[in-house]
């Protein structure tokens, strides 16, 4: 692989596809988009296969100095690799999901998605602060268009809200970036990750970045754009939004906030914990009372992302790796759940939960997939989300039993709202004739669901494939931030041993 600019190639392929789509338009654009995304995915597989686990921290690096303080620098570590894989894996599925449901301006639609893919690969591969910023913010534009042009009835409000929220944070982040480059004298991200900013400055820098990442995450209370955006977005838009765009916030924390401002991160961990705890309970309860399937899943995403933030700020390996695994698992599972909604939305054109019921009867394979993804979302062991949730919570417990306790209640509430949803959709009698007449999933829908299902199980049974590439990077990050870790509240203390066994008859009544 030496010298071959694979990352640039991975961005060029969808870019060429995007331009092509703009010009040819119509049905042919679908084929072009599918070919381009599949080719990018194939390159992604090649990238993963040639990634040297245990090798250099930054691999496949490319660099071109453009002008002072700005360079076109790409390169990935294991964390970026995994997120890129997630993006390129979901992309062909998104194209398939839009195959029949998008009928107007097909060329422009596919083009927007392919641009989106370019930007997503770019944002994870960027090694220059400003290059990252450009990709990070430019990602808004195609998504804004996807929601605003191909969205539902209330799409203008949703896209405006989405844009306003996300832009608000970004301005502060850009200012902070200028200050940082002036202070450190470089915009090179790997260098900045090792740079020790003054502790006092870290505080403000952290908050500036936090404003942006918290919105992207989204964290409570800046989450209200997400349900609206999801509800209005077309199915594939929701998949990308939940699958990849929500991961930008977490990626930001792990790439910028934690390594660049470790002291401030430790100092402000309480804030993250507090917001995360509120989010888990609050948004889970809100999810419980939703009547709109997409809103329900959107709120569940907020609750899951709260586990990511809490895990990241647990300041230990389990917390960090757990957070990464939740991001990957949630990317697959929530994407798949939105696909599940899309499948029945395409048939009945409503997201109202009560319009369905008894789908296990007429759509048994659909019900099976939906069940698998529901269980994965609930964090059933053997599926992807369990690994992440378990590790993250185990990590959190080592920092704070309170936070772990509150966040773990999410497993109860999560089961409640997801199973309640599943029951209303798939169980019960077929009370609506039109819903009862819906045919089971088609070959195209099989092709969307089956790969995700396989990945979900793979990640749950043998997560080593995904943990191994990230291990060294997480360890390095953990070493970098360890000194700033907040004190834990467990504080194991020695004491005189009690009666050696509680029920040894000789030691009557071993109570203390």
């Amino acid at each position, binding site marked *: 692989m030496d010298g071959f600019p694979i990352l640039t190639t991975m961005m060029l392929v969808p870019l060429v596809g995007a331009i092509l789509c703009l010009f040819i338009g119509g049905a042919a654009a679908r084929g072009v988009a599918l070919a381009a995304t599949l080719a990018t995915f194939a390159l992604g597989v090649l990238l993963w296969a040639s990634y040297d686990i245990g090798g250099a921290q930054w691999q496949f690096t490319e660099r071109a100095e453009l002008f002072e303080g700005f360079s076109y620098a790409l390169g990935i570590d294991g964390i970026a690799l995994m997120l890129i894989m997630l993006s390129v894996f979901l992309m062909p599925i998104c194209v398939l999901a839009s195959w029949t449901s998008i009928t107007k301006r097909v060329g422009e639609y596919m083009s927007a998605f392919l641009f989106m893919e370019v930007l997503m690969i770019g944002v994870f591969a960027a090694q220059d602060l400003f290059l990252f910023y450009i990709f990070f913010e430019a990602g808004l534009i195609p998504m804004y268009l996807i929601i605003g042009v191909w969205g539902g009835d209330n799409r203008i409000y949703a896209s405006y*809200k989405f844009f*306003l929220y996300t832009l608000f944070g970004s301005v502060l982040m850009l200012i902070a970036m200028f200050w940082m480059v002036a202070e450190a004298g470089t915009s090179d991200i790997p260098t900045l990750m090792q740079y020790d900013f003054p502790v006092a400055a870290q505080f403000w820098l952290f908050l500036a970045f936090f404003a942006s990442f918290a919105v992207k995450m989204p964290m409570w*209370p800046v989450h*209200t*754009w997400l*349900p609206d955006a999801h509800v209005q977005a077309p199915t594939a838009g929701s998949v990308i939004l939940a699958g990849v765009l929500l991961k930008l916030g977490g990626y930001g924390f792990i790439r910028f906030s934690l390594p660049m401002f470790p002291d401030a991160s430790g100092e402000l961990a309480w804030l993250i914990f507090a917001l995360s705890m509120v989010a888990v309970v*609050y948004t889970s*309860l*809100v999810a*419980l*009372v939703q009547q709109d399937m997409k809103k329900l899943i959107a709120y569940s995403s907020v609750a899951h992302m709260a586990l990511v933030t809490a895990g990241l700020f647990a300041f*230990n390996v*389990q917390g960090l790796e*757990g957070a990464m695994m939740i991001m990957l698992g949630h990317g697959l599972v929530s994407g798949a759940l939105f696909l599940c909604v899309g499948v029945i939305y395409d048939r009945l054109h409503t997201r109202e939960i009560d319009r369905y019921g008894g789908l296990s009867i007429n759509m048994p394979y659909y019900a099976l997939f939906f069940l698998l993804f529901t269980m994965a979302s609930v964090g*059933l*062991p*053997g599926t992807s989300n369990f690994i992440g949730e*378990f590790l993250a*919570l*185990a990590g959190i*417990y*080592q920092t704070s*039993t*309170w936070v*772990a*306790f509150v966040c*773990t209640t999410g*497993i*109860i*509430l999560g089961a*409640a709202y997801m*199973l*309640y949803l599943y*029951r209303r959709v798939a*169980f*019960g009698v077929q009370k609506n004739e039109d819903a009862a007449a819906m045919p089971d999933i088609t070959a195209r829908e099989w092709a969307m669901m089956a790969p995700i299902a396989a990945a979900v199980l793979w990640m749950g049974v*043998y*997560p080593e494939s995904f*943990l191994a590439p990230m*291990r060294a990077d997480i*360890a390095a990050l*953990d070493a970098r931030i360890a000194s700033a870790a907040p004190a834990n*509240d*467990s*504080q*194991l203390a020695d*004491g*005189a041993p*009690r*009666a*050696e*066994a*509680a*029920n040894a*008859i*000789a030691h*009557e*009544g071993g*109570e*203390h």
Partner: protein
Amino acid sequence: MQTQILLIVFLPLLASIIAGLVNKNAPSVFAKSITTGALFVSAALSWPIFLGFLGGTATAEVVPVLKWVQSGDMTFDWALRVDALTAVMLVVINSVSALVHLYSWGYMEEDPDQPRFFAYLSLFTFAMLMLVTADNLVQMFFGWEGVGLASYLLIGFWFKKPSAGAAAIKAFVVNRVGDLGFMLGIFGTFLVFQTTSISEILEAAPAMSGTTIGFLGMRLYTMDILCILLFIGAMGKSAQLFLHTWLPDAMEGPTPVSALIHAATMVTAGVFMVCRLSPMFETAPTALAIVTVVGAATCFFAATIGTTQWDIKRVIAYSTCSQLGYMFFAAGVGAYGVAMFHLFTHAFFKALLFLGAGSVIHAMHHEQDMRYYGDLRKKIPITFWAMMAGTLAITGVGVLGVFGFAGFYSKDAILEAAFARGTGISQFAFWAGAVAALLTSFYSWRLMFLTFWGKPRWIDSEHIQHSVHKTPEEAGADTTGGYKPHESPWSMLIPLILLTVGAVLAGYIYKYPFIDGSSDAVNGAFWGGSIYFNENLVHALHAVPLWVKLTATVVMITGFIGAYIAYIAKPDIPAKFVENFGWLHRFVYNKWYFDELYDRIFVKPAFWLGRQFWKLGDIGTIDRFGPNGIAWVVERSSGAAKTIQSGYLYTYALIMLLGLIAAITWVLL
């Protein structure tokens, strides 16, 4: 032994996947044969392992399967551990599961979804086997949740019934409350021991007995809090008091499911967990006291409800709940071998009772209400005798030193152990257990008398009316309505007969290895260190006064006489009792109002809070003052700005003047 173990565990999984994927694309006999066949092979492979441990020839073994997770210091892998404790569970799970598979051939014959049913059953068996062969706490949790999933699917198997869907969710969510404890317990254990390997934890536990740890702002003995958290998990799975509400509702599932999951295997997982971790629990006196109290309270509480229910399956469900309580307080007083013994015998006689009840329901055209049974003794004789054996076993009929049915040995040993333990709490457990044994005898015989004796009351049942196309008025004096109950097919009777053998002999044959650890002089040899074996307690248990040994028999006879008087000799007594003690009957009949209480304090508030957060929080506050508020401000200020930019010179002049004044004031100050 390695290959056998792998086959035992993974054959059911393989069968389940094949049966589930082929589903209705092949005749249902395909799915039925492949799953049932796999289970019989697993069962056949399990018994030699168990007998090997009994004979002292087998040793504990761990079969590594696959790497699972490595995250920093936290590692856990897929592995199958088989020791004496696991061997007992293997025999119980696979034997009962194989018989239940076979039984379902007959019971589910008319169901259109048989492949799905058999796939679920085998999936359950696989998850349960993963649970009992776990070498680390996380794999145990995998099995724990896996059986929860299978239980959810099987309770909701007839998903068209709204009550089945509701019961399935309830089972899963209530279990999740327990899982919260289990998960926190695992996290705490990892924090303390830096490992999730069960054998390493058990080895290191005694050294931690005096240490304290912070938890939610409290300072507690490390081992106490860890064991309490883990025990909360056990309470959920084993339906102990406060977390029991899902088990009776779980009867919505088909009866074979109730026999396998909600009687013989899954619900005993909590007991298995406490026994598996017994060396750890032995370092936690407070936790063990809680185990004892919860177990004793449950065994009494559930038994009271059992005396009032009319649904034959619900009576047996509460009976299960009660018997699990016995197992827990046996473990709580340190008699882990005795707890496992009762788990073992209970699996046979309770599966027998459930399958027998299924056979009765099958005979009575799906009627489950005992008020509409009666006089079935001669109509379905094989079912009757099987149920009889189950009843003799659960009530503990036997003569000291001669012979007894299965429950006679295990339940009596539990009461003796509680008495021998000698603490205040164990005395409480002893008396609660004794009273519960009286109630057990009463409700078991009540069930038998209502079902098999007396006059037929069949025509009052709607199910029977549908079958014979008659109303009670049309039937007149013939209260059978002309209905002919039919004995079940052989696929159902053979499992009943085999389980009958277990219910009759399991106690007599295996009492020495389970209670004393061995049939010869070497005490504890059978368990081989797989549980904490308290030799002193076993000696004390055998040395209790005669009146203690006879207590169980006395209360058993009392319960029988009570039931005989109330339901055979003077059948008007129950009605009079209800008349005079209406409040007490209502309280017990309504299951101590737990469901209503939980609905008021958990379910309704959760939905209410959700709506408030959504309407008042998200829409009413965040959106109102956030994006919508900003939009409003922008709109208004642009409106204001528009009026300023009027295009008239004097407006601009005025603004300029005001600006100048402001600037000058600023400079001067």
